[in-house]
């Protein structure tokens, strides 16, 4: 009951947040939700299934380019978004194959190389991606009953997509698949001995995580209406990883908080002018030193103090194991 009320309050807050705000701030809110979707995908791959990926931004890129190319060709955004998700799901399966052979840092390097490859393809294949000039003037979706013209319209569309996505993701994590993902993270050998097809579940962890980023890309395309290869460079994958880690890997609401810190906090610190990035970096370092399990980890620690019988998630005490 308490949880439902909390969720309802959160939902109402999401709808009220942009009211009375300027165009720029609404755009920032849109970015926050868009990156939250991508980070929730990475949270599934890393936080729940324990598979490191440094290629999340490249999947946003793939999703954004697929949507841009299709919508510029006159295809409706819904179909383009669907295609983006499917393409990223399939490529996600392919990028998951190395994870069957290599783990940890080695896997991180494989995914990092993939991210770089996607950026290079986007830069060099002008005929398809527009090269360094990128793609621009992508149309905003028109649903007949709901024409998207302003950033506020766009925000409400993203909120609806985000809520549907979050419900689906929650269902997935609570399902037997979610249990298998966690088993893969905690003890893959034992999981396999209990009948879990760890190969299949590893590939699915990558596929679902990548498809989520594809959806974020499909949102990005009509949101910013300009995409170019550097928007999906490794730096952005690291940024999404930071969102997951700062929020708390393996916690459902972690990425939402993490994305808020990474996207919103620098904006709130702008009043410090030239110092905002220094303050932002210092805050992140302090957080990681004192709570490797991220913001959700702090919440858990407080809960444990209040209710000592409630066990803190021991695997997350040291943060996500990369």
């Amino acid at each position, binding site marked *: 009951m308490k949880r439902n009320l909390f969720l309802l309050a959160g939902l109402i807050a999401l709808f009220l947040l942009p009211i009375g705000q300027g165009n720029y701030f609404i755009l920032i809110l849109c970015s926050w939700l868009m990156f939250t979707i991508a980070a929730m995908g990475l949270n599934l791959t890393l936080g729940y299934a324990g598979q490191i990926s440094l290629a999340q931004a490249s999947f946003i890129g793939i999703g954004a380019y697929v949507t841009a190319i299709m919508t510029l060709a006159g295809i409706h955004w819904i179909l383009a978004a669907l295609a983006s998700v499917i393409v990223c799901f399939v490529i996600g399966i392919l990028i998951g194959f190395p994870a069957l052979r290599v783990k940890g840092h080695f896997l991180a390097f494989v995914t990092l190389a993939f991210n770089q490859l996607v950026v290079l393809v986007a830069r060099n294949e002008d005929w398809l991606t527009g090269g360094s000039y990128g793609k621009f003037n992508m149309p905003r979706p028109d649903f007949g009953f709901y024409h998207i013209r302003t950033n506020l319209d766009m925000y409400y569309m993203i909120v609806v997509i985000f809520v549907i996505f979050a419900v689906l993701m929650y269902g997935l994590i609570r399902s037997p698949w979610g249990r298998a993902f966690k088993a893969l993270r905690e003890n893959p050998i034992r999981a*396999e*001995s209990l009948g*879990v097809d760890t190969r299949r579940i590893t590939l699915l962890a990558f596929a679902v995580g990548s498809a989520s980023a594809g959806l974020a890309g499909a949102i990005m395309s009509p949101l910013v209406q300009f995409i170019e290869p550097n928007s999906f460079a490794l730096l952005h994958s690291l940024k999404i990883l930071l969102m997951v880690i700062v929020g708390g890997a393996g916690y459902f609401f972690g990425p939402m908080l993490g994305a808020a810190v990474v996207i919103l906090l620098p904006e709130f610190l702008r009043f410090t002018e030239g110092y905002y990035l220094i303050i932002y970096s210092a805050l992140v370092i302090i957080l990681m030193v004192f709570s490797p399990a991220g913001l959700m980890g702090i919440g858990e620690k407080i809960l444990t103090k209040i209710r000592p019988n409630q066990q803190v998630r021991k695997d997350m005490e040291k943060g996500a194991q990369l």
Partner: protein
Amino acid sequence: MSDTVLSVRNISKSFGNIHAVRDVSFDVRKGEVLGLIGPNGSGKSTLFNCVLGQLTPNQGEVMVNGRPVSGMRSNDLNKLGVGRTFQQLSVFPQMTVLDNIILAGQEHHGTMLTRLFGKPDAGLTPEADQMIEFFKLEHLRDEMAGSLSYGQQKLLDAAMAFMAGPSLVLLDEPAGGVNLTMLGHLKERLKTYNESHNTTFVVIEHNMEFVMSLCSRIIVLAEGAIIAEGSPDEIRSNQQVIDAYLGG
């Protein structure tokens, strides 16, 4: 129809010049509790791993319910009705006891799609509760498995191995590190399960009292080969076994 559940035929396994298992053959009948004992380095674990498909033998064949299983992946082996426990603790520490047990059964229910769109517990909560009750873990049902004591985790490990209703369970040092009270409880539960379900057990164990009281037949390995086979009483009085393993 034969009542042989596990058939090990002429298994040999070498690592370079070290012959870990030499031409070992034995059968295990339905409902039997077979103990595999022997000094360290006698080849027990290698043989166990050959049976479980984690090592491919250089020679020989392993059959479960008449089907060759050499080199088979553990998840496929599990679906053939083979459960196992591990020497080290092998529960999922950040899942509740209930979730650990449900996970152990969920892959045997429905398809990938029904497991995605069906009930979160795959409809296994009543069955899991029965298993929890059987191992007397009901007061710990909703606790994180990682917060359980060592002995309780060993019980949970065994409960997980039984959740899918296997025809054969391989127990790798189930008594290792378990205190005397919990050990008695574990043994009693294993015996009861064996008698009520007629499940076949193969047990590797160093605790002689545990093995002698649990197993109906014992095979003794030394230097990769079988040196004795028989009932617990026969093994106790076998001079070769006394010399090689039990001591004076």
